[in-house]
């Protein structure tokens, strides 16, 4: 049982240790490095699942770093002084998403990177990015959150610039890095303001103290701005297509998961940190309208793209819009109408895992296309279905799921969002449905252009590890689509409840009493 | 007590001279002029730090001045190396 107690920190520390030790093992022997990577990945996934099971069965997990015992949260003074990890339902849910995406990325990259140079460096960065995401999701301390935000920023941007022999990846990486850094610094400024007011950095303690003064509001605004940039909400979404489009496929899906970790940070700030002080529905309306705007603009831009990677990237941005819409509706109406507000929250949160699986599948398929024929320009592609049978099947499945075709998972979560947003305002639902239809059109076009038609050129077949990675994500899509009730009941509902009513439990778990 | 105060006053005077050097940094026609101004500011800051360490009565603060004296040299050398050419 002792490993169960330490599971939250092991889930973060083991990938870090794996990343640190990877170059050393690579110096010894190639296959030792690969073995080490597999072992670390498997152990991390096991730890994440352990944490999730413990959290869903026995409530919030608290781990105080450096104290005499893990649950020893409060020093003699009656306030928390050490950094602690707090895992509630939402954190555990996000951890599962990160573990899923990380596993797929690791498996996918396994044979792919053998053909490229710099595999050791890329794998190190991959583990650092993974650990950073898990750290963002499990931590219970504002400054620690910022540190892991920067870890993910820097690791993600380095991975975006992986293809140094082309000029576009460096450009995308520079732009992304500039925006990420400014956003991170604004978050740090907000943390500084909160520290100056309350002399603490622990989320639970701050949440119990925040009153909603002018400075608190400015801090909330800065946090909102920085994190909304990081999740890629219109109009600050412009880094997203660049970065997603130019990154290698296994890095692009990690970027998607990273975006969702930032989204988790946004929810944590809105629901837990400012949950007590925030009563006006204005913030909810802000998030909702940004969600609708994101959805519409991204989908319209996706219609005219000619690069397969950028097209999928705009699709990914539009999915962010759905999540913002769902949780924004929940945020707006929860105090007055909890019954369908909770449904909206469930839809938004359920859409996160669906988005990770579907967009991940599409990016991986696009990566196979790039490797097969060396380009992703839709004007030059065609007839790949003759050579890449499995890949085209997976792409088709992902496209259908993304567009919300029943009985796949995209429909299940979007259905929840439609139902609840209709009761807030039918216009929202109309725009959301329009976005879905346009997405279907876009991906039908992409599928037709890339995979159908006569065979234009020889394509290199996908390697087995790529197929396995795509198969894992496809299995998740099918499972989520065929038995949505099970997942919603056992994973999504605890997560939504943790955000909505869980603030008191969160505070009680940390501060006691 | 008076000695500490006099150290503080001397530090203030050195800071005023730093303003003068900053003027040269602003108007210097060439980059070399600015580099010279930076060098002067470095020396003045080291002296100021030593004086203020005595003025605060804190022994351990003088370490900062030592670090500063050592490392500003590196920065100056980089600038000089750049000025020297090898500019592609």
């Amino acid at each position, binding site marked *: 049982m002792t490993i169960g107690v330490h599971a939250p920190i092991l889930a973060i520390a083991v990938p870090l240790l794996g990343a640190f030790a990877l170059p050393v093992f690579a110096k010894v022997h190639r296959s030792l490095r690969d073995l080490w990577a597999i072992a670390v990945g498997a152990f991390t996934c096991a730890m994440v699942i352990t944490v999730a099971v413990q959290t869903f069965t026995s409530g919030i997990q608290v781990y105080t770093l450096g104290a005499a015992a893990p649950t020893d949260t409060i020093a003699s003074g009656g306030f928390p002084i050490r950094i602690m990890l707090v895992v509630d339902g939402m954190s555990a849910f996000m951890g599962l998403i990160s573990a899923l995406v990380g596993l797929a990325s690791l498996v996918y990259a396994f044979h792919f990177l053998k053909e490229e140079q710099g595999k050791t460096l890329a794998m190190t960065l991959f583990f650092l990015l993974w650990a950073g995401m898990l750290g963002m999701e499990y931590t219970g301390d504002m*400054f620690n959150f910022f*540190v892991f935000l*920067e870890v993910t920023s*820097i690791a993600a*941007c*380095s991975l975006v*610039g992986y293809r*140094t022999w*082309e*000029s*576009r990846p*460096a*450009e*995308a*990486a*520079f*732009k992304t*890095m*500039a925006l990420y*850094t*400014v956003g991170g*610094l604004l978050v*740090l*400024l907000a943390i*500084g303001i909160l*520290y*100056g007011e309350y*002399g603490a*950095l622990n989320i639970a303690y701050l949440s119990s103290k925040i009153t909603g003064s002018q400075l608190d509001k400015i801090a909330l605004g800065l946090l909102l701005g920085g994190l909304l940039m990081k999740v890629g909400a219109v109009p600050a979404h412009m880094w997203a*297509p*660049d970065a997603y*489009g*130019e990154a290698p496929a296994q890095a692009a899906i990690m970027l998607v998961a990273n975006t969702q970790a930032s989204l988790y940070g946004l929810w944590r700030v809105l629901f837990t940190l400012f949950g007590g002080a925030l009563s006006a529905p204005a913030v909810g309306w802000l998030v909702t309208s940004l969600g609708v705007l994101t959805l519409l603009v991204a989908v319209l*831009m996706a219609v*005219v*793209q000619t690069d397969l990677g950028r097209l999928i990237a705009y699709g990914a941005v539009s999915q962010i819009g759905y999540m913002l819409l769902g949780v924004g509706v929940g945020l707006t109406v929860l105090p007055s109408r909890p019954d369908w507000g909770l449904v909206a929250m469930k839809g938004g949160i359920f859409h996160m895992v669906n988005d990770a699986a579907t967009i991940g599948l599409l990016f991986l398929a696009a990566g196979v296309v790039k490797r097969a024929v060396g380009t992703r320009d839709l004007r030059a592609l065609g007839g790949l279905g003759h050579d890449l049978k499995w890949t085209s099947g997976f792409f088709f499945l992902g496209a259908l799921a993304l567009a919300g075709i029943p009985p796949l998972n995209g429909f299940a979560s979007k259905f929840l969002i439609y139902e609840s947003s209709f009761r807030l305002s039918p216009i929202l639902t109309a725009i959301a449905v329009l976005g879905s239809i346009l997405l279907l059109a876009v991906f039908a076009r992409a599928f037709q252009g890339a995979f159908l038609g006569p065979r234009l050129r020889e394509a290199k077949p996908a390697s087995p590890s790529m197929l396995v990675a795509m198969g894992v994500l496809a299995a998740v899509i099918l499972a989520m689509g065929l038995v949505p009730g099970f997942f919603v009941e056992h994973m999504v509902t605890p997560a939504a409840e943790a955000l909505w009513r869980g603030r008191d439990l969160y505070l009680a778990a940390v501060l006691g009493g | 007590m008076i000695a500490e105060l006099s150290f503080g006053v001397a530090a203030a005077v050195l800071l005023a001279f730093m303003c003068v050097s900053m003027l040269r940094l602003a108007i210097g026609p060439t980059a070399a002029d600015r580099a010279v101004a930076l060098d002067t500011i470095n020396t003045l800051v080291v002296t100021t730090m030593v004086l203020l360490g005595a003025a*605060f*009565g*804190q*022994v*351990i*603060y003088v370490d900062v001045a030592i670090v500063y004296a050592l490392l500003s040299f590196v920065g100056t050398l980089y600038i000089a190396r750049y000025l020297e050419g090898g500019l592609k």
Partner: protein
Amino acid sequence: MIGNFPFVVCMILIALGLWTLLTRRNLIKLTIGISLIESGVNLFLVTLGYVRGGVAPIYTYAPPGAKMVLPTPQALTLTSIVIGLATTALMLAFAVVIYRHRGTLDARKIRELRG
């Protein structure tokens, strides 16, 4: 006393950095702007922890019975400074690679990714 002047200076530094990002076009100049924002935030953090008449929170040779300034913001700032250096180094590396490919550092000309 000097009132909130240090806070104002932090904000001026942040605003200068943002202005650089908004108006300048050279990639290295943009990096300088980000460094300035970084400096402003660091100064803000350290300024938060100052206690009037305090000494550094180090007990070696400390005057007995003196007030001490708050240690946490200094610890945070140490972390933040190293993060800033890491960011700067990475951005400059990207700028160098971009120059190697394009022969320019003008952000107006580096816009292959658009639309």
